[in-house]
C-alpha cells in the first residue's frame, strides 16, 4: 500500500515535457508568436533556397526598384534585393540575440547563485557591482561598451551580454536565498554534501526556471538592442545585412522609396513581438506564482 504513487503534493514537481508543450499549445497568443518566429527562422535557414540573389550582390542598374515579382521587397541604393538581405539578416539578428542572452543568463546564473549561497562579503561585493551596472540605462551602457570595444557585430553582442548580466544575477540570487533556507538544502548539508555540489546539483536546477523565463522575454529585447547599435553605427558594419544597419541607411530614403526601411522595420517588429508572446507563454507554464 505504501508503494502506491501519490498524486497530491505541495512541492514543486518536475513537469513532464509533454505536459509543458501541451500547456504552451493551449495558449493561443504563444502559438501565434511561435508560428511567426518559426516562419522567420525557417526562412533564415533556407534563405539560399528561397531567393536566387546574394545579399551583397550589387546591381547598380536595378537600384531603388519598388516591390515586384522579381524583388518582393524592392531593392536598395546599390540594387541589392531587400528580401534577400532581410532573410540573411535574420540569421545575424536572431542568432546573435539568442547567443547574447545565453551568455548573460549563464554567467548571471552562476554568479547570482554563488553570491546568494555564500552571502557575506562576496555577496556584498558582487551585488554592489551589479547595482552600479544597473544604475545606467541599458542602451546607454551597451552603446558605451560597444564603442569602447570597437564597432562590430560581435562586440555589439558582447556588450549586450554584459549589460544584461545583472538582471540574471539578481534573479538567481533571490531564488537561491530562498532555496538556501529550504529544508531539502539544509538536509543535504546535514548529509555532508559539499557546498559547490549543493549549489550545482541542488540549487541551480531549482533556480533555473525564472532565469529561463527572463531569458525568453529578453531575446526580443536583445534583438532590438543589436538593431539599435547597428542603427547607430556601433554594431554591424555595412555591407552586413543586419536589420538595424539597413534601417539606418534606409530611413533617409523613406519618403521616396518607402519599402527600403519599412520591411526591415516590419521584421524587427515581428520577431521582437513574437519573442515576447513566447516569453509570456513560457512564464505562465514555468512560473507557479504567475496567475494561470
Amino acid at each position, binding site marked *: 500500500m*505504501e508503494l502506491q504513487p501519490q498524486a497530491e503534493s*505541495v512541492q514543486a*514537481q518536475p513537469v513532464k515535457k509533454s505536459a509543458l508543450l501541451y500547456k504552451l499549445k493551449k495558449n493561443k497568443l504563444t502559438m501565434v508568436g511561435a508560428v511567426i518566429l518559426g516562419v522567420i527562422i525557417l526562412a533564415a535557414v533556407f534563405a539560399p533556397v528561397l531567393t536566387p540573389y546574394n545579399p551583397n550582390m550589387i546591381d547598380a542598374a536595378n537600384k531603388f526598384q519598388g516591390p515586384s515579382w522579381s524583388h518582393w521587397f524592392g531593392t536598395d541604393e546599390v540594387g541589392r534585393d531587400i528580401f534577400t538581405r532581410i532573410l540573411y539578416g535574420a540569421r545575424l539578428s536572431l542568432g546573435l540575440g539568442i547567443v547574447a542572452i545565453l551568455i548573460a543568463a549563464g554567467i548571471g546564473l552562476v554568479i547570482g547563485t554563488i553570491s546568494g549561497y555564500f552571502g557575506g562579503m562576496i555577496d556584498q561585493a558582487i551585488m554592489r557591482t551589479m547595482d552600479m551596472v544597473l544604475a545606467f540605462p541599458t542602451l546607454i551602457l551597451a552603446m558605451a561598451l560597444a564603442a569602447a570595444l570597437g564597432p562590430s557585430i560581435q562586440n555589439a553582442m558582447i556588450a549586450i551580454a554584459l549589460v544584461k548580466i545583472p538582471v540574471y544575477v539578481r534573479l538567481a540570487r533571490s531564488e537561491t536565498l530562498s532555496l538556501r533556507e529550504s529544508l531539502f538544502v*539544509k*538536509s543535504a548539508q*546535514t*548529509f*555532508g554534501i559539499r557546498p559547490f*555540489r549543493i549549489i550545482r546539483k541542488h540549487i541551480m536546477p531549482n533556480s533555473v526556471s525564472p532565469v529561463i523565463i527572463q531569458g525568453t522575454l529578453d531575446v526580443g529585447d536583445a534583438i532590438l538592442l543589436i538593431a539599435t547599435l547597428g542603427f547607430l553605427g556601433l554594431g554591424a558594419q555595412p555591407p552586413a545585412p543586419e536589420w538595424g544597419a539597413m534601417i539606418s541607411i534606409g530611413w533617409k530614403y523613406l519618403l521616396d522609396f518607402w519599402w527600403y526601411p519599412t520591411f526591415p522595420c516590419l521584421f524587427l517588429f515581428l520577431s521582437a513581438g513574437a519573442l515576447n508572446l513566447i516569453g509570456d507563454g513560457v512564464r505562465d507554464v514555468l512560473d507557479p506564482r504567475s496567475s494561470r
Partner: protein
Amino acid sequence: MLEVKDLHVNFQTFRGTIEALKNINFSIAEKEVVGIVGESGSGKSITALTILGLLEKNADIASGEITYRGDNLLALSKKEIQTIRGKKIAMVFQEPMTALHPTMKVGEQLSEVIRRHRNVSRKEAKRLMLVALNDVHIHQPEYVAKQYPFELSGGMRQRIVIALAMAAPPDLLIADEPTTALDVTIQHEILQLMKELNEKKGTSILFITHDLGVVSQICNRTIVMYAGEVIESGETKDVLYTPQHPYTKALIEALPDGKNANVPLKAIQGEVPNLMERPIGCAFASRCSHVMETCKTNPPALAHWQNQHDVACWLERG
C-alpha cells in the same frame, strides 16, 4: 561519545535577545538512544542544530562546549565540521515532505550521499544504494529508486531520508520529530526501523519528540526540556514512572491513556515564559502547582537525585 556542557545559545532579534538555550548539559554514550522531550519552543531543535553547526546567522553561542570523541565541535572550522556532518553525525528532519530534493530521483540522491562518504565507483554506489533502500525496508528498491519524491508517500519519503542519513553510516543520528508528520501505523513502523538500525549498525540516536509515548518505546534515557533548560533527565523508566519535576509529572498526566479516552486531557495551566525576559527564579514557577517562595527568586540547578536521575527543582532538595 558526545557530551554537551554548559551550552548557552542566544538569538539576536530586532526586538531583543532571546535566550533560547540556557545551561544545557547532557551526554550520549555509544549505541545509546536518548530522547529529548519538551513543548514546542523549548529549544529541542536548536540543541540539535547547534551540535551540527547549522544555526541561523543571528544565533550566538554564548558559551559551552560540545565534545565529540575528544573534539570540541564548536571550535571546529567550517571545513572540519563538514567532514563530521553526515559521516559521523547525521540528522533527520521532521518534514519528510520537503526534506528531499524535489527534482532529483531518490536513487540518485542516495547514490550522491553514498559516493560522498565512501570512496566507491558509480556502479558500486548504485549497488550500495539498493542495499541501503533494502535496509530501510523498501521492498522494491529498483522501482522506488527511479521515483521522484512527489511520487512517494510520506512514510516512504521518511524511509528514504533515514537511508540518506544512515549512508555513511554515522556514529550518531539526530532525529528531530521524525514521525510527527506521519500517521500512527507508519509512525510505529518508522520507530521499529530506527530501533533496528540502532541495534544492527550500532548507531546512537538522539531522538527529539514531544510525544512521551514514543520516548517510552525506543529511548534508553530521556531528557526533559523546558524553556531552553534541561529540567529532568535519567533512565526512561525512571523519568516516566517516578517523575520528580512537577513539569514532567504534568506532562505525563496530560497523556491520554487507553482506559478513559473520553476524559478531556489535563492541559498544563499558563504559558511558556517569554524567552526574552526570563523570570529570575525557576522558569516553570508561574505554572507550577507546588510553587514555593524560593522558586520565584532562585533558579534551581540540575542536580543529582538518585541513580542517574537528575532533576532541577527545589522540592526535591527538601
